[in-house]
């Protein structure tokens, strides 16, 4: 890679992931359907070449997949556990993207300690929703508030969910959590920066979330405003996909350990990785057929 293309690539990463993200989200706020273009013009300026950053490749594959009808796509995620350093950027990025309150988490990173002192090692397991092909959380819902979309993403209708939490008990990966209506300013930090922390947390609590392409301003009360009082889960950032953006956790992963793409397209990175010998899914014995898989 020569200097010029290197600059182009780095500029692109910055551009697509940084400014472009913010701008498109800004646009989306004003008009949710305005940005559903068929391609990202900026991508045309970068030639596909061997050794390019996987984010660029996945971005290109994302645009290709989004030009297909919904039912022809099948989103999958591959997490390379060998590359994960447990920096928790995905967890934090996800929280920022979806404005998650305390007690709700879509993608924690499990830090497992193996062995006993002094022979100890650690391994890390980021745990988003498995987006099961046979999701145990769906048939338990008494009001059809959760279902698997044609593209394989398991979603929740916040306006229907009655908050019974049956789906939370049904998920074998504990990938669903409950929004109790709490905010970060509750018992906010004390000490020198307490005031600042409180102010920041209050601002954060006012920020809407754009899950499912809708603007959600949550609040508690006699009739709580959803998603307060609902089960919540990772959506593979379907609202970002609509704007040709990769899921937040994919873009924030500093080790490029999280890969994302269309499993129905054999040329995508995820399709190629998913069939490797070292690709495994969690609890395969339950027959849930996760579309999130791990490389060991």
């Amino acid at each position, binding site marked *: 890679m020569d200097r010029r293309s290197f600059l182009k690539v780095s500029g692109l990463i910055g551009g697509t992931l940084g400014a472009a993200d913010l701008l498109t989200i800004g646009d989306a706020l004003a008009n949710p359907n305005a940005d559903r273009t068929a391609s990202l013009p900026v991508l045309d300026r970068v030639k596909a070449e061997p050794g390019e950053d996987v984010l660029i490749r996945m971005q290109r594959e994302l645009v290709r997949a989004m030009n297909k009808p919904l039912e022809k796509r099948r989103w999958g995620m591959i997490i390379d556990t060998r590359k994960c350093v447990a920096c928790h950027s995905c967890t934090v990025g996800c929280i920022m993207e979806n404005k998650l309150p305390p007690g709700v988490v879509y993608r924690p*990173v499990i830090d497992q*300690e193996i062995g006993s002192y002094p022979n100890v090692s650690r391994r890390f397991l980021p745990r988003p929703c498995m987006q099961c092909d046979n999701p145990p959380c769906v048939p338990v819902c008494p009001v059809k508030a959760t279902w698997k979309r044609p593209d394989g993403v398991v979603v929740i209708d916040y306006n229907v969910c009655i908050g019974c939490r049956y789906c939370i*008990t049904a998920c074998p990966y504990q990938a669903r959590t409950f929004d109790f209506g709490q905010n970060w300013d509750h018992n906010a930090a004390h000490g020198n920066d307490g005031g600042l922390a409180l102010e920041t947390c209050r601002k954060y609590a006012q920020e809407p979330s754009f899950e499912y392409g809708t603007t959600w301003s949550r609040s508690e009360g006699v009739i709580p405003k959803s998603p307060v009082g609902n089960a919540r889960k990772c959506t593979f950032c379907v609202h970002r996909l609509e704007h040709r953006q990769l899921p937040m956790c994919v873009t924030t992963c500093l080790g490029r350990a999280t890969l994302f793409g269309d499993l129905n397209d054999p040329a995508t990175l995820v399709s190629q990785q998913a069939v490797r010998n070292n690709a495994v899914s969690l609890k395969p014995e339950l027959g849930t057929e996760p579309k999130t898989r791990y490389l060991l």
Partner: protein
Amino acid sequence: MAVSSVSAIGIASPANRARLLWALWILAAIIGGLGFLERLLHGDQATDFSSYIPWGLWVAAYIYFSGLSAGAFLLAATIYVFRIRVLEPIFRLSLLLAAVTLPMGLLLIGFDLGHLERAFLVIIRPQFHSMMAWMVWLYTAYLILVVVMLWSSYNSDRPGRDPEAVTKDRARLRVLAMIGIPLSIGFAGGVGALFATLAAREFWHSSLFPIFFLVGALTSGTALVTAVVAWQWPSRDAAWKDLVTLLGRTVLVLILIDLILELAEFMTPSWYQIGSFYELTRYVLFGPYWYVFWVVHLLLGVIVPIVLLAKNRSPVVTGVAAALVAITFFAVRLNLVIPGLVTPELRGLEQAYRDPIGNRLTFAYFPAWFEWQVLLGAIAFGVALWYVLIRLFPQVLPSPAQSSEVGQ
């Protein structure tokens, strides 16, 4: 404080005892009412259940009360359908207890919902794959049936009613009771199936679970009826003594059957001390809440009642034993719900990402004061409902002169 006030007032006189009970009820109603208010204004925020232990005291209380209801109803329906003459005087009492205990459970499960205002969606857009939808439909049908049965029973007893009409009323009641038996079996077992059908939860995922729930419902419901008959029955004659003794014997048999099922449920999957079920059994038996099993359930709910019921024929002692069974059965319900949730489905999840603000990402659970407060409110509500209903349907507790006519 309660004890000292008891001795200060002196419980010997009935008037004083009534005053004390009123005072206790008002206290419970105030505490519970404040809990209801907190729940309506701020949702489930003050609870201790969490994202990882999403069901707690209220769900356990809900299955407890609905079990009491189904048990009492099954007793009533069996008496009527199979024409068990000796037990016929308590038919209406059992029916009324079923009508009182189910709303107590429904109140708690309603408060448990994140969106109480959307509960009707289960009726207008149900998903019949879901055991929960089934349960809601079954108990709605069941509640309607109980009310209709109570009304028919009341109607058939109105003074001056045409004897032919009375015969028709009774025939209708019998049909309703026949419909009610499979309905309440389905509903009581269905609550167990709600848990048992979840493949993700090994502690619940057992085919014995629905049966265990059903027998538990019968045991606790019959015990409740026995305790109320022993305590509140107006006449204290020989017939009453026989009635209480017979009911006491029934409770004894049911406790023993329940114990066998419990042994099977706990011992089979954990006998060789290997596997995750074994860990959960250990949690129930030797975990932080070991006393719930050993003291509340096994000692006070099984051993003491067995000894009392097997040895004694005094109605008062039988009543005490039955009350012990009925009350401590709550421990059984708690030990069915909570242990199914206490271990992380993925090892290390409890450490992965914590929530220091709401404490919602933890696998430790002990019901918060607020949860107990709402439970107390539900009990006060049930007592009030009982108080009103026995005045609306006075034949439930027949005065000595009436008792010979009842249920014939």
